């Protein structure tokens, strides 16, 4: 009883329940949904596709979780993906063969972008939405400049592996995303970094008075988010074997925010739930996949997504919860 209670009251219960319901719907709709096959030592099947295609959103959601936990938001991640992808593609096209060098340049780009956001928010005191909107708008322009406005095709086996490779039986991108979540979780919880992020998001003034370098914490979460966006950009470019500054990462910042919110981290900052964001990102990817299969035209696809977000926001709002509770109480009294 108490065990069940604990699960029901756990903050990740709702997104997890949503994911399970969605999987059941899919399994009923298409019996092959849960069918996994092993071909040439690689696992195939819809869940594997979901993991593989969802990997970028997972990585973005990881960085976004911490930014949102401090009470901010990072709108620039989609554009930063484009810039990082462009940097990687141009270096490869110029004949740079060292994968380490290419990766360092692309991820470094993400870090610099995050640093710009972080300094604007923490030192200049610009509203996070506005600060990151600047790079969201400017980023794609920068990516265009780097690629010269063309789609650059990538031919580099090592690089492609990042987006399409398999590690033992599993898609490498998904393994990478999961590993990143795990290391971040331990990195944040075994040190006091996670506590500092939550404290700053919960009450920045009290945190400063308690001796936390609030400006540094705020700046670093944007740097981390930029790094995640850089990695997601590399994964996207590797996946399609090209850098397309127009389309890559388009609307991905919104997916990342959705994943975090669906996962139970409040937009007002404070407590964050990495596991929730992980489940949230998978939930969104599964929903997208479901709509593909159901033949929902891509133009209409955002509607069910929006409805899902609405449902979660209502579930998280204290006012609606209170309203529901009062309904039940009335029912009990009657």
């Amino acid at each position, binding site marked *: 009883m108490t065990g069940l209670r604990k699960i029901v009251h756990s903050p990740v219960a709702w997104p997890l329940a949503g994911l399970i319901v969605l999987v059941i719907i899919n399994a009923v709709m298409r019996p092959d949904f849960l069918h996994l096959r092993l071909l040439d030592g690689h696992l195939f099947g819809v869940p594997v596709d979901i993991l593989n295609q969802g990997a970028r959103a997972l990585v973005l959601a990881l960085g976004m979780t911490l930014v949102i936990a401090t009470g901010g938001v990072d709108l620039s991640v989609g554009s930063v993906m484009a810039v990082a992808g462009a940097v990687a593609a141009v270096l490869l096209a110029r004949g740079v063969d060292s994968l380490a060098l290419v990766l360092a340049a692309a991820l470094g780009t993400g870090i610099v972008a995050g640093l710009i956001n972080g300094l604007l928010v923490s030192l200049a005191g610009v509203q996070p939405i506005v600060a990151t909107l600047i790079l969201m708008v400017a980023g794609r322009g920068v990516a265009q400049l780097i690629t010269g406005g063309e789609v650059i095709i990538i031919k580099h086996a090592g690089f492609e592996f990042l987006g399409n490779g398999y590690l033992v039986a599993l898609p490498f991108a998904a393994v990478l995303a999961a590993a990143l979540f795990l290391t971040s979780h331990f990195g944040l919880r075994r040190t006091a970094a996670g506590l500092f992020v939550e404290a700053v998001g919960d*009450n920045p003034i*009290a945190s400063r008075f308690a*001796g936390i370098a609030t400006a540094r914490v705020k700046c670093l979460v944007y740097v981390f988010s930029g790094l995640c966006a850089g990695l997601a950009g590399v994964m996207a470019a590797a996946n399609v074997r090209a850098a397309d500054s127009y389309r890559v990462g388009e609307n991905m910042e919104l997916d990342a925010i959705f994943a975090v919110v669906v996962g139970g981290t409040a937009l007002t900052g404070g407590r964050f739930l990495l596991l929730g964001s992980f489940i949230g990102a998978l939930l969104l990817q599964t929903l997208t996949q479901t709509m593909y299969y159901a033949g929902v035209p891509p133009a209409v696809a955002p509607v069910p997504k929006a409805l899902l977000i609405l449902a979660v926001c209502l579930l998280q709002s204290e006012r609606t919860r209170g309203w529901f509770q009062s309904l039940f109480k009335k029912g009990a009294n009657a």
Partner: protein
Amino acid sequence: MSKTDESPLLALRGIGKRFPGVIALNGVDFTVRAGEIHALLGENGAGKSTLIKVITGVYAADAGAILLGGERIAPTSPRDAEETGISTVYQEVNLVPSLSIAENLCLGRQPGRFGFINWPATRRHARSALARLGLSLDVDQELGHLSVALQQMVAIARALDRKARLLILDEPTASLDEKEVADLFTLMRQLRSEGLGIVFVTHFLEQVYAVTDRITVLRNGELVGSYDTATLPRLELVSKMLGREMSPAAAASPSAAIEQRAATEVPVLTGEQVGRRGALHPVDLSVRRGEVLGLAGLLGSGRTELARLLFGIDARSSGEIRVGGSSARLHSPRDAIRQGLAFSSEDRKLEGILPWLSVRENLIIALQGKRGAWRALSRTEQDSLCSHYITALRIKTANAETPIRNLSGGNQQKVLLARWLATQPQLIILDEPTRGIDVGAKAEIEQLIAKLRRDGISVLFISSELDEIVRNSTRVLVLRERRSAGEFSGTQIAAPTLMHAMAGGHQAHE
């Protein structure tokens, strides 16, 4: 109540207002005549702002009646009150800084036709409204570009333009310099002679005596009385505000044992000419080991400002601070904590608790902040700190994982004290540690102060309750009007002496 009660401009009769768990106003009478400046005074929680909110229609009174010019009114909003002739000007001007002066003056009632604003008429109207106060400003300027003093003048002009009969000035002088205050007073006197009734809320007693005709004092939501300014001595006024009779007995006997011992020791904290432009005139102070330095003064006297300078929250514009004899770099609370200082803020909610985090996290946060992110306290260490302090301070909580917002005010305060004790400070600044908590918890916090002193920890103790200062301090520094008004020790620490210093005027000597 004197015989000059010839049909007052504003008369409140038996106003009552309660909030859940608190009686904010209890049967308060308040009368303002036309052509008078009336000071409304009281310490924290006296009910001043609630009373003003009742008059201006922000709150509806639970009991009593409001009469304006003999007619009963029941304003339902500040706008409604404004239409009946009651206007309020706040310290933070409640106008729109990004709009022009003319727009602000005419907001909500622009001269216009067919839904379009008639700009020339708006400007003319604004100019004439300002001219009435002897002001000539470019009415197309953005209001936000003006000084606070001028913004207030515009707000007053707007009030007069709305045919105000009663003007409420809520701490208008808090951020003005002396010249601006003098200008404001000139204007207030001019308006008085035109028959306006003015309610003046302020913390500065000098200003009360400079400009007002009558004084009404509230305390704990009740009326203490209304007096003619000219016949009420300043000391008596303070005693009425603090709720103490002026019996010179009551002198407590603080333990003077520390005095001798510490005379030769290097003080834990020394401040020389510590000040901040616009907030605090330079002040000297020193705190020795195991000493409780009481910091007394009325609201707005600069107590919290001094504490914030010592803790590195605000930058000081003058002076030097030494910790343990050597000059200290204090640019942030982080610096201060590393020097062994601790600061429990008076504003528990805004500056103290991390509401959504647990008691455990709230308790260890300052110690963890001192250690930095990498040297995390293990869960075992955290749990033992929590169980130690929960027992030692008798914190009532379901367990250490309960979110702190679920605790009562007194228990939240104890968690915050534990937060600072866990950092093992040399000196702890307690700013109003007993505010808003129940009597039992108050007594426990006083016991804790005594224990800290015995353990050799120094305390800078700030309180509005004079009795608390007298009971707990080994030495007392009094601030008045943002400057030092004397230091007292030994048998000098007695309520009447301190009250003299807090009130000012005729200086008290021994």
